[in-house]
């Protein structure tokens, strides 16, 4: 049986390629990876009018077939049939931005030369009209020699026409691909400009929206203030907006826990389900709303085009520590999770800039630390109001974020002066037009994140929690003995404790540190499980966990624990993605060691200072 015909969607960055891909394939998408490289492969299915299925693949945006980044290299290799794990496409949909034809037609011309059956999607015609630009698709069709379809991908306009053009094209016979003719960029660019000029019917100068917005958002004084405000609102919202859904989830888990306790006879099985699975996984799932709010902001900032402006505003400061403004986007994403953050460093062209960004990304306070921070702060920091709307707990949380950022900048500075000296100094980015991203696309993005998080909770976190439960429950303590003294986990904890006692960590923390290597938030579920086993009469709700912590930990220990989590590289996924992105074990090992050293020193300093101050 022949495989499905493969249609590649290609185009320059900011042409609206992904929106068009979403419009064509809907939510039925698969996100994978090209083998050997760390470029994501987005594919989906489209059914033609006669019922024939077609496989669509969304290629990374590229300015030309001469790659200047790993993403662009994949695009070239797929188009030339050289990419491992991908067959050569049978047809192409080239997406171009109607209001930037001068530039986008250059890549389109290069692609048309390949000789594959090709359709041009003349995208964002609405934005071109808004800018006073009227184009004639027929002239364009004649000059380019391929069908041209007008589309507005974000509003799903012109999609049916595009589908029927695809239908016609895939029905026609087709003969082979040409190697690209030695194409001189400058020459192609000039031809692109000629064709673009010829296709213009009329052009009325209008004051463009993007210009008006940029005049404010990129203003040397107002711009940075707005950026700071947006960041502030974002972090406030992460807590404020998620409070209500969080309490629903907590109620749900408490109900589930009660139901399970009532239904099951007392014993090992009940302990495993109630104390292990429900207490452990439940403690982590309550943070789903916060993580989704954070991703909502990041997706909106990216989709509107503001994220690039933020990079523009921050470039000079980042340059000061040897990074570029481009690093701002991956580092900001790392506040949600270091894994997508590290993957986003692919857009950084300079290898040393990129490596530095990867190595400091785990210092950004990711959402997995939130459960840990929130728990400890709620238990140990009094909820005093310092000023109107500003509470002490919030200030401590903010301080932890700032410590992470300062640590990252300092680490970058040291790395760029030391092991990663030289090179760099580049910042070249296109500032795309502002636009409101289709809410459906934002929703798809958030749902994907929710799915990944819940999968993690259901697999890694559930798995490690149950293993920890087993280690913490076996062997069973006799009368008068404490379970955490007798169990295997207790013994492992005591061994680790000898190393971490100087920095104020007790045996409970030591027991939680090891499973927390799987993922930071496991620390919370691990502590919940350990205490739940130790006092089986109580339910492991968040409030009782707080109470237990208050009785068992000193304030100095709690603060040291927070300082530890600012720096400690406790996340298998981050280490794995670093290995993949740097093609070897050298840099992930380096990253893990320097972060552990930092974590140990920071926790130690915090503990000793706190003890000296009599806390």
């Amino acid at each position, binding site marked *: 049986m022949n495989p499905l015909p493969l249609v590649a969607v290609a185009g320059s960055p900011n042409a609206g390629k992904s929106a068009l891909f979403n419009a064509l394939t809907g939510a039925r998408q698969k996100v994978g990876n090209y083998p050997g490289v760390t470029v994501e492969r987005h594919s989906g299915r489209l059914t033609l009018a006669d019922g024939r299925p077609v496989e669509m693949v969304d290629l990374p945006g590229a300015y030309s077939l001469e790659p200047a980044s790993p993403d662009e290299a994949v695009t070239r290799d797929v188009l030339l049939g050289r990419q491992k794990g991908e067959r050569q496409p049978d047809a192409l949909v080239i997406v171009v931005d109607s209001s930037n034809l001068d530039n986008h037609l250059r890549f389109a011309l290069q692609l048309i030369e390949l000789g594959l059956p090709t359709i041009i999607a003349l995208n964002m015609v609405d934005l071109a009209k808004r800018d006073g630009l009227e184009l004639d698709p027929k002239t364009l069709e004649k000059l380019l020699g391929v069908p041209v379809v007008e589309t507005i991908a974000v509003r799903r306009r012109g999609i049916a026409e595009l589908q029927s053009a695809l239908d016609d094209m895939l029905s026609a016979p087709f003969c082979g691909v040409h190697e690209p003719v030695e194409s001189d960029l400058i020459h192609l660019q000039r031809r692109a400009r000629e064709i673009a000029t010829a296709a213009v019917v009329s052009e009325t100068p209008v004051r463009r929206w993007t210009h008006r917005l940029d005049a404010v958002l990129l203003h040397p004084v107002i711009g940075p203030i707005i950026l700071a405000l947006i960041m502030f609102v974002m972090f406030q919202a992460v807590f404020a907006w998620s409070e209500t859904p969080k309490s629903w989830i907590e109620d749900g888990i408490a109900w589930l826990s009660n139901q399970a306790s009532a239904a099951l006879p007392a014993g090992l099985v009940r302990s495993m389900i109630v104390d292990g699975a429900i207490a452990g996984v439940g403690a982590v799932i309550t943070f789903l709303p916060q993580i989704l709010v954070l991703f909502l902001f990041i997706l909106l900032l990216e989709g509107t085009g503001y994220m690039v402006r933020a990079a523009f505003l921050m470039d000079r400061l980042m340059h000061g520590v040897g990074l570029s403004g481009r690093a701002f986007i991956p580092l900001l994403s790392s506040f949600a999770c270091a894994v997508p953050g590290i993957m986003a460093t692919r857009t950084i062209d300079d290898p040393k800039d990129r490596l530095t960004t990867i190595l400091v990304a785990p210092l950004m306070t990711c959402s997995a630390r939130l459960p840990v921070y929130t728990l400890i702060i709620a238990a140990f920091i009094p909820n005093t109001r310092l000023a109107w709307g500003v509470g002490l707990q919030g200030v401590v949380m903010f301080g932890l974020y700032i410590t992470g950022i300062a640590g990252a900048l300092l680490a970058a500075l040291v790395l760029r002066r030391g092991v990663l000296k030289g090179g760099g100094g*580049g910042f070249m980015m*296109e500032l795309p037009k502002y636009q409101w991203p289709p809410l459906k696309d934002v929703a798809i993005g958030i749902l994907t994140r929710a799915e990944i998080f819940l999968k993690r909770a259901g697999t890694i976190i559930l798995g490690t929690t149950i293993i920890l439960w087993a280690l913490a429950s076996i062997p069973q303590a006799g009368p008068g003995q404490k379970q955490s003294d007798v169990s295997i986990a207790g013994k492992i904890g005591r061994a680790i404790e000898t190393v971490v006692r100087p920095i104020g960590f007790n045996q409970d923390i030591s027991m939680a540190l090891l499973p927390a290597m799987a993922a930071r938030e496991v620390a919370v579920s691990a502590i919940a499980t350990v205490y739940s086993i130790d006092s089986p009469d109580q339910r492991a709700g968040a409030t009782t966990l707080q109470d237990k912590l208050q009785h068992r930990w000193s304030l100095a220990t709690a603060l040291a624990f927070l300082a530890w989590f600012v720096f400690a590289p406790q996340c298998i996924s981050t280490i794995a993605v670093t290995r993949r992105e740097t093609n070897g074990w050298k840099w992930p090992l380096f990253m893990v060691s320097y972060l552990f050293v930092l974590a140990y020193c920071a926790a130690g300093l915090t503990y000793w200072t706190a003890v000296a101050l009599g806390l």
Partner: protein
Amino acid sequence: MNAPFQPDATSLDLLKVGTKARVSAVDWASLDEAEACRLRHFGFDEGVTVQPLHLGPFGRDPIAIRVGRMTVAIRRRHAGAIHVQPIR
């Protein structure tokens, strides 16, 4: 046609914000390969009209430049490699 040395010839980093200019030459040799490639991707070329629009808030770096129909941001150092002739 541009004469090679006109009195108000300057480089893109020295051009005042809002002033339109025509690129008279690009010193490709002073850029590394990837940087030169990227500038070509953005459409920098002799004869193209450019206009600085915004300067970064710290140290007036980077510079946002209108080139053709798109806006791009590049560092001051790279803008210095682009020689321009202001349009009056």
